[in-house]
């Protein structure tokens, strides 16, 4: 009886027209990447180096161990790439603008290591809001960052100096 009802409702079902613009139909606005930066727009916020979440190192020597500004940006980019492929945390990045993330993470590392960058991203609380990051997720990201730094042949003690700046930010990042 019930299955007959289902069959009838299936047959009675109206087909949607083939060329419906579903985005318009559901009022979804398409976000467009900036043609220059390749990033999606974000809501306005106050830019400040304070958003980087820690004070930079005083000496500029440390940056050399990371290959300077270019090396640091490459490490940040590689970290995100590895994270996107890491089955433990890949889901977090799926709907994320990783073009922007790679840039802002690079800026943050570069700023903290005193390699001559300003951080233009959002603060740690805002930028991780709603991601549902756990401590285990954070460890996975640390491992990806360590792998990226190893690939760049950053000495271990120097690697830890960067982690030392990031570790205290856990309270703003971990949500559950």
């Amino acid at each position, binding site marked *: 009886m019930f299955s007959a009802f289902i069959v009838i409702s299936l047959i009675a079902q109206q087909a949607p027209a*083939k060329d419906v613009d579903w*985005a318009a139909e559901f009022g979804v606005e*398409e976000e467009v990447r900036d043609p220059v*930066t390749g990033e999606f727009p974000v809501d306005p916020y106050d830019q400040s180096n304070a958003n980087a979440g820690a004070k930079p190192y005083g000496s500029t020597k440390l940056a050399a161990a990371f290959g300077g500004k270019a090396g640091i*940006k*490459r490490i940040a980019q590689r970290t995100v790439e590895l994270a996107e492929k890491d089955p433990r945390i890949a889901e977090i990045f799926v709907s994320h603008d990783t073009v922007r993330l790679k840039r802002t993470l690079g800026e943050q590392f570069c700023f903290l290591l005193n390699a001559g960058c300003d951080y233009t991203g959002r603060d740690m609380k805002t930028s991780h809001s709603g*991601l549902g990051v756990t401590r285990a997720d954070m460890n996975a990201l640390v491992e990806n960052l360590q792998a990226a730094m190893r690939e760049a042949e950053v000495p271990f003690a120097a690697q830890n100096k960067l982690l030392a700046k990031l570790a205290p930010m856990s309270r703003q990042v971990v949500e559950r």
Partner: protein
Amino acid sequence: MRCLLPPQAAAFVAVMSGVLWLPHGARAETTTPSGLIEHGPIAYGDVIAVAPDQLKGEAQASDPIAYEAVLSESDNRPASPRSAGRRAHSPVGRDSEIEAPAVSRNSAKLLLTNGIASVEGTSGGGVATWATIAGREMDRGIGLSAHFTAIELPDYGWRSYGASIGIADRLELSYARNNFDTRAAGAALGLGQGFTFNQDVFAAKVKVLGDAVYGSTLVPQIAIGAEYKRNLDRDIVALLGAGDHDGVDYTVSATKLFLEHSVLANATARYTKANQLGLLGFGGPADGYKLQFEGSLAYQLSRRAVVGAEYRSKPDNLGLGEDDWLDVFAAYTLTDNITLSAAYVDLGSIATFEEQRGGFVQAQVAF
């Protein structure tokens, strides 16, 4: 962003929407003319039957942004097709890469941050107990750990083996068995050649605040613990003058990894009446509980290797000249789950046999 829907439910929704449209040859995919991939409020993306290549092609053609320009400074890899067209929810076009991750959340802790088992079975630095919790799981898992330790001294052979469970990186429950072979010294002490002292240690440790790795460097991970020790040679330890054959140690530990210096530091206060950790019983003719101190410093050479030194003060309830302990150790994580440790230990005088200095080796398996 996690899919909040169980996969079965998502599959059901996807299949049903497909079925409903099938009579008219339509597909469940909803690709907008711009290449933007949308679906309803439910993120069932990876289950829907889409033709990813076609989608990607379309998306790229319609949205040929300068992703390359962003990367070009430092990288000449081809632009990822995923850079074109933003997915409103989940990754329809991401091929099989995004199957529901079957990977368990094992190995959640960073390497070595579970410590190595102490001879009493608690997570620590081999000789001292730390505030760390055994096992490799974090706050959403249950970790397991097992160890075997051998200590070879001029006059004695000491074995410790046991297992522990670390619940939610919060509560550690452990058991260890100590076998202390007196060898020839046994005969000299009138116990008999090869007499072996045996002891069970049941311990519980709770992390009360802080984190050894994360958070402020000023706030260490602090744990409190209790170790119930039961000597199995009741009559012998009574003959040696011990007041009891069992007893409870109470510990408060603080551990912090100072990343800026790659140094891990631990300090533990132990309220105990144990003689040689309990191997020679508990308390003396008159003496009872005393406060003792354990300190450890370790330097991280790499993600997998650490070297360090420990100090542990001890009471002398039996008047046999019991000494404080020292050790210098190295630990290496052979694989994510196996840690090998070696140490040079100076255990001083044990049951009147002086200068007990020797080697310590340990294998630990942790999940």
